[in-house]
């Protein structure tokens, strides 16, 4: 019955359209790849630059590639505030963990466990952020990405694979999956121009 059509389900469908084109997957993959290259080349600025550069690039690409194919919808101010609040809380939580680790690292009495398991903690935090996105947007493939990111640290600690290669490998796989999704999306949804209808 009509009254049983869940508004939450419709809201979820609308959320999912943001991830339908694979562009956020490519964004995440390149960002993770950026971390690997940053560690490899000691270019500490790289993740930040990648993040900001890609973020704006993605919106530009979406405007040209996605919206002419599946259209555009903007959430209400209340929903947008709720989404922003979630990301702020997430950002603050990650920052707090980062500050705590920096303090522990800097006080001289650096705990041995922190030195030993730093990659695991670092990748764990990244994976947790990706899990949060997966849970919030109900995009299940992001859980797989979280596992891939976390595995990078596991392979590093227990199999001796270089830490940066974990990032590069995970990032590369995520980019490839994103590209695959993008190709399917482009084939499935051809560009559409509105037909002129006189609704009056």
């Amino acid at each position, binding site marked *: *019955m*009509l*009254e049983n*059509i869940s*508004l939450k389900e*419709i*809201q979820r*469908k*609308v959320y999912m*359209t943001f991830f339908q084109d694979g562009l956020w997957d490519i964004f995440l993959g390149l960002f993770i790849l950026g971390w690997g290259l940053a560690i490899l080349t000691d270019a500490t600025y790289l993740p930040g630059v990648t993040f900001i550069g890609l973020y704006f690039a993605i919106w530009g690409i979406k405007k040209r590639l996605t*919206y*002419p*194919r*599946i*259209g*555009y*919808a*903007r*959430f*209400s*101010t209340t*929903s947008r505030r709720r989404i922003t609040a979630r990301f702020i809380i997430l950002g603050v939580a990650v920052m707090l963990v980062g500050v705590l680790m920096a303090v522990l690292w800097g006080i001289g009495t650096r705990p041995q466990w922190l030195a030993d398991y730093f990659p695991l903690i670092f990748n764990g935090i990244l994976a947790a952020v990706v899990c949060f996105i997966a849970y919030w947007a109900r995009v299940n493939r992001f859980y797989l990405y979280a596992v891939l990111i976390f595995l990078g640290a596991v392979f590093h600690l227990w199999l001796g694979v270089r830490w940066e290669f974990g990032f590069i490998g995970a990032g590369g796989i995520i980019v490839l999956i994103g590209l695959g999704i993008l190709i399917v999306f482009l084939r499935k*949804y051809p560009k*559409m*121009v*509105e*037909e*002129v*209808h006189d*609704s*009056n």
Partner: protein
Amino acid sequence: MRRYTIVINNSDEVQEPVNKIDRLIHEPSRYILMAYLYVVEVADFLFLLRQTGMTWGNLSAHLSKLETAGYVVIEKEFLGKKPHTTVRLTDHGRNAFEEYRGNMKRVLDNLPAK
């Protein structure tokens, strides 16, 4: 000879919510459109088309009816040389949709349990 009595419940309690059902929203395609517009602030024509699976003409006709009732506002513009139509729910439409859902719930709640 046996006499049977048929009791028809004509009480306002049962009839009133049924009478209050907004027939304009009750049509499934329009209900879906209203539901989409209820969860977003604004959506363009193409978005509604893709989400609902309607045809251009169908969507246009339903939106036109909702616009006539004052439930939605349709704005037409040109992006470059391409036409672009955005649709948003009015406050009146939002209230009507909430009222419709409430009435439907009441109607179904009044049905006897199996």
